[in-house]
């Protein structure tokens, strides 16, 4: 890790810790239940978004199939809790099963590149949902109910979600600053060139997929325990996979804090706006997606970065380097025109 320099550098280190302390102390101020619930939902979704971002943003492998890991995490946790284990053991179990699934999915599909990989992940989610709809162990399409002996504790759910999101941010930061992260970025820019330089693209992708799946599985478990009832059409839904990918895209793909920002926006839209206008939430997501893709492909982080540059009156050197690679499928060097 680089040593921080200047006020901005120190601020970057202090702000996340400050945020964490505020979030940890928040329940002591007896806020409304609704706020805690909103933060819980946001934290769970942000964790999945951060997971997706490791694979999609850093390594540039766009997957529409993260609902599989979310759903597996939910079901594994539920089944383990039903067998009498502690929910925390359930979360770990959920992560383990999700990681296992990520290898099973990744081993064949990572031989595919670009759009072929994307399409394959869509096929995998749909197939898994049909199977889960028909599986007897989990009650099939009618869903699964978790019964817990202890009293419902809003704060316990809240803290487990905050812990998950903190772990996700930590993992993302560590990976972003490590040699592994460098290898992933090399894969994103040019897989063949990365391979020539000694990066084992296939195993790197497999491992980052596994880490991403583990984080998503934990989030699924935490979600399931609070929801207490869920069914395949919900946790394994295609739209769940889309929500997971929406957050990094909204916030800023390939950055650590982009998915967090996106997760906050998503949580607010999901819990506040779509409750007030239940008929319009697809329209809201759709328009948001269209607007971001066409106007600011680097998401809110890109917008913020541009704003800061404007404040400092520095010339913009490059528009949106991260989005250039992931979204447009090429490096920023070539420019936007054909």
């Amino acid at each position, binding site marked *: 890790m680089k040593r921080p320099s200047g006020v901005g550098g120190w601020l970057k280190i202090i702000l996340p810790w400050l945020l964490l302390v505020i979030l940890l102390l928040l329940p002591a101020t007896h806020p409304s239940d609704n706020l805690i619930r909103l933060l819980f939902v946001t934290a769970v979704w942000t964790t999945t978004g951060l997971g997706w971002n490791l694979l999609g943003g850093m390594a540039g492998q766009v997957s529409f199939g993260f609902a599989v890991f979310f759903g597996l995490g939910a079901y594994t946790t539920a089944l383990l809790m039903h067998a009498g284990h502690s929910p925390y053991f359930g979360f770990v179990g959920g992560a383990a099963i999700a990681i296992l699934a990520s290898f099973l999915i990744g081993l064949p599909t990572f031989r595919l590149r670009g759009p072929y990989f994307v399409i394959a992940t869509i*096929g995998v989610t749909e197939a898994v949902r049909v199977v889960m709809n028909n599986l007897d162990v989990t009650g099939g399409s009618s869903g699964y109910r978790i019964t817990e002996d202890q009293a419902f504790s809003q704060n316990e759910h809240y803290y487990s979600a905050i812990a998950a999101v903190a772990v996700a941010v930590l993992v993302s930061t560590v990976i972003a600053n490590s040699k592994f992260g460098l290898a992933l970025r090399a894969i994103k820019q040019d897989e063949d060139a990365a391979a020539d330089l000694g990066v084992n693209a296939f195993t790197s992708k497999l491992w980052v997929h596994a880490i991403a799946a583990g984080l998503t599985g934990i989030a699924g478990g935490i979600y399931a325990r609070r929801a207490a009832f869920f069914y395949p059409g919900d946790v394994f839904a295609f739209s769940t996979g889309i929500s997971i990918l929406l957050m990094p*895209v909204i916030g800023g793909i390939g950055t650590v804090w982009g998915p967090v920002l996106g997760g906050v926006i998503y949580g607010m839209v999901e819990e506040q706006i779509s409750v007030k206008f239940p*008929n319009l939430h697809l329209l809201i997501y*759709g328009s948001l*997606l269209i607007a971001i893709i066409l106007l600011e492909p680097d998401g809110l982080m890109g917008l913020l970065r541009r704003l800061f540059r404007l404040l400092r009156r520095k010339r913009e050197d490059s528009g949106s380097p991260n*989005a250039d690679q992931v979204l447009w*499928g090429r490096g920023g060097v070539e420019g936007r025109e054909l």
Partner: protein
Amino acid sequence: MDSVEYLDLLLKALLLAGVYAAMAVGMTVIYGVMKIVNLAHAGFLMMGAYFALELFQRFHVDPILGAIIALPVFFLFGMAVHWLLVRWLPKSDTPTLASLLLMFGFWLVLQNIAYLVWGNEDQSILTPLTLSSVQIGQISIPKVNLVVFAAAVFCMVVLQIVFHRSWFGRSMRALIQNPYAAQIVGVDDQKTARLTFGLGTAFAGFAGGLLGMLFSFSPDFGRPFLLRSFVIIVLGGLESVSGVALGAILLAILETFGINIALPVYWHGWSFHYLPPSYQQVIPFALLVVVLLILPKGLSSLFSRKWKAA
């Protein structure tokens, strides 16, 4: 299973394949020319079904005629969508996440509009044709399947003629084969892209109308068919129209005969078990992944090169 049953299923598969081909072809031309995986295809299919339903209920237009009327209407609609949204996407040789997400966003918007206008109940188009059937020996075929098949095949033939005989078709094929060379010899790529998007949308609307006659539909109608379209165009090699016909036939046969597929299962020794009917929906998705892995360039890569872009 006796031979009559076999023939019955095979015939049903072929009839289904006609609609499948019409459904997937719009996606293929758009992918071929613009390298956009058009997720909004599902939305266009759904809108097509509702379009035929509205014409049928309000003006008592025969749904087959409705589906044909959908062709020009959706052509203009597609051109408008291209002009409004798609043309702002940067050009690329490979599909980009941006195009995928843009079209997905548009699909969500279409879906929401449909929920607002028509609600979320399942709708279906029932005509006198729906319940009557033609008897050939021991086999009975619903008339509606026959009519839908005929309409689909007719439009596919017209498309093939446009593709091979018109300036626009030739420009499209040129852009599919080599976008740079095509531009050098004077193909207006923006104009062709706009027309192609219109054409792809027109076929989606048309196929949506046909599918609406065979299946019941809701605003979420397009999704399973979107994935089937994927399977078909991947089987067909992503860019060729004749490949689409081939892929459609293969998928329809596998789906129709799916219940009769026996899988070897190890449970206290080897035995063969039939795939339970409820798992039948897995077939297209599993097929999609398997085909991508084994034949990433489609079935046509097994045969000669002349299948490509033809």
